[in-house]
C-alpha cells in the first residue's frame, strides 16, 4: 500500500525536528482490551501514539503498562499530562514522562474545569514556558482561541493543539472558522486534538488545512474499534487530499453541470 505522502505529493508532518508520515495520531485509553487497542492502532496507520503517566499497580497480578502491547521502537510515544489541574502538576508529570527516556515530547494538558475538561489557558502557558525552558518539545492542548494559540507559539511550543470539541464528547468540529484562523496565523504545526466522533468529523477537520489530528475515544468507543480506526485513517487522508486539492467555491444558486446549448427544439 502506498503511503498518504506518496498518494498526495504531500510533505511529511514535521514537529520539533521529527517527521511523521501519518497525520493521524491516536490515543491508547478506554479500549475494551489491550489486544483490540493494538489492532486498532495498527489499522489507524498512526505513528504518534499518546500515553498517560500513572502509578504502577503494586499488585503485580494487574499488569497495566501499555508498553506490553505497543513496541516503543515502532511507535512514537507521546506522553500526556492528562488529569493535571495545575501548572505545577503538569510539569511534574511531564518530567516523569521525560525520564522514562523515550523522547522529549510532551502533550501538555492543564485542565481548568472538571465537567467540560476545557483547558486552563493561564496554567497551560505557565507550564509550557517552564517545560520549553527545560528543553521539552511541548505540544499544547488548548481551546480554539487564537490569542492563546499565539501565546503558546511565542512560548516556544513545538505544536499547538486546539480542540474540535470537548474531550470524549464526539461532537465533532464545532468551530471550523477558529481552527482555520489558528492554522493561518501560526507557524508551528496545528494538530486538532479531541472531540472527533466519526470519520466525517476527521475529514472535515483535515479539510480546514490543519497539519494533523489526534483522537482516542472516537476509535476506542466505537462498536468495532479496528474498523473505525481504518475509517479514520482513510478520512484523515481524504480530508488532507481535499484540502490540498482546493475545494470549489460555495454558491447560493445552482449552476448546470451539463451544457445548456445543444438542446432539442
Amino acid at each position, binding site marked *: 500500500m502506498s503511503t498518504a505522502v506518496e498518494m498526495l505529493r504531500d510533505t511529511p508532518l514535521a514537529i520539533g525536528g521529527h517527521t511523521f508520515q501519518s497525520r493521524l495520531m491516536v490515543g491508547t485509553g478506554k479500549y475494551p482490551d489491550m489486544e483490540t487497542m493494538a489492532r486498532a492502532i495498527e489499522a489507524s496507520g498512526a505513528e504518534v501514539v499518546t500515553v*498517560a503517566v500513572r502509578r504502577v499497580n503494586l499488585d503485580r497480578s494487574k499488569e497495566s503498562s*501499555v508498553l506490553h502491547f505497543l513496541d516503543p521502537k515502532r511507535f512514537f510515544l507521546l506522553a500526556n499530562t492528562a488529569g493535571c489541574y495545575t501548572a505545577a502538576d503538569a510539569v511534574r508529570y511531564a518530567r516523569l514522562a521525560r525520564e522514562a527516556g523515550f523522547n522529549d515530547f510532551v502533550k501538555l494538558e492543564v485542565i481548568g474545569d472538571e465537567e467540560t475538561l476545557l483547558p486552563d489557558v493561564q496554567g497551560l502557558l505557565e507550564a509550557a514556558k517552564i517545560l520549553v525552558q527545560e528543553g521539552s518539545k511541548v505540544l499544547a492542548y488548548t481551546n480554539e482561541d487564537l490569542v492563546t494559540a499565539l501565546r503558546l507559539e511565542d512560548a516556544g511550543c513545538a505544536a499547538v493543539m486546539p480542540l474540535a470539541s470537548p474531550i470524549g464528547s464526539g461532537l465533532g468540529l464545532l468551530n471550523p472558522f477558529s481552527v482555520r484562523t489558528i492554522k493561518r496565523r501560526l507557524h508551528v504545526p496545528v494538530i486538532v486534538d479531541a472531540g472527533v466522533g466519526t470519520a466525517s468529523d476527521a475529514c472535515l477537520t483535515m479539510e480546514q488545512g490543519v497539519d494533523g489530528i489526534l483522537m482516542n475515544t472516537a476509535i476506542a468507543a466505537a462498536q468495532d474499534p479496528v474498523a473505525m480506526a481504518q475509517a479514520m485513517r482513510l478520512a484523515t487522508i481524504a480530508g488532507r487530499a481535499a484540502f490540498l486539492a482546493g475545494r470549489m467555491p460555495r454558491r447560493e444558486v445552482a449552476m448546470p453541470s451539463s451544457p445548456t446549448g445543444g438542446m432539442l427544439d
Partner: protein
Amino acid sequence: MNDTIDVVINGERKQTTPGATLLELLAELELDPRTVVVEHNRRIVRRPALGDVTVTAGDAIELVHFVGGG
C-alpha cells in the same frame, strides 16, 4: 533498632529494610527498574542513581509508568 521502617509507596504504607536502596526496593516489589520512573520525596531519581539512594522512615516514593490514555 527496628527490623523494618515504614515508607509510603504510591500512597500505600509499606515496610522495608532500613538502609535499603531504591533499587533494592524495586527488587522487593518485583519491578523492573527499566520500566518504571521513580520519584523520591518529590525528586526524580534517574535509573543509574537508583542504587545510590537509600530510603529512610517516612519517605514518600512514587513509582510510575505509561498506561493507556489520550
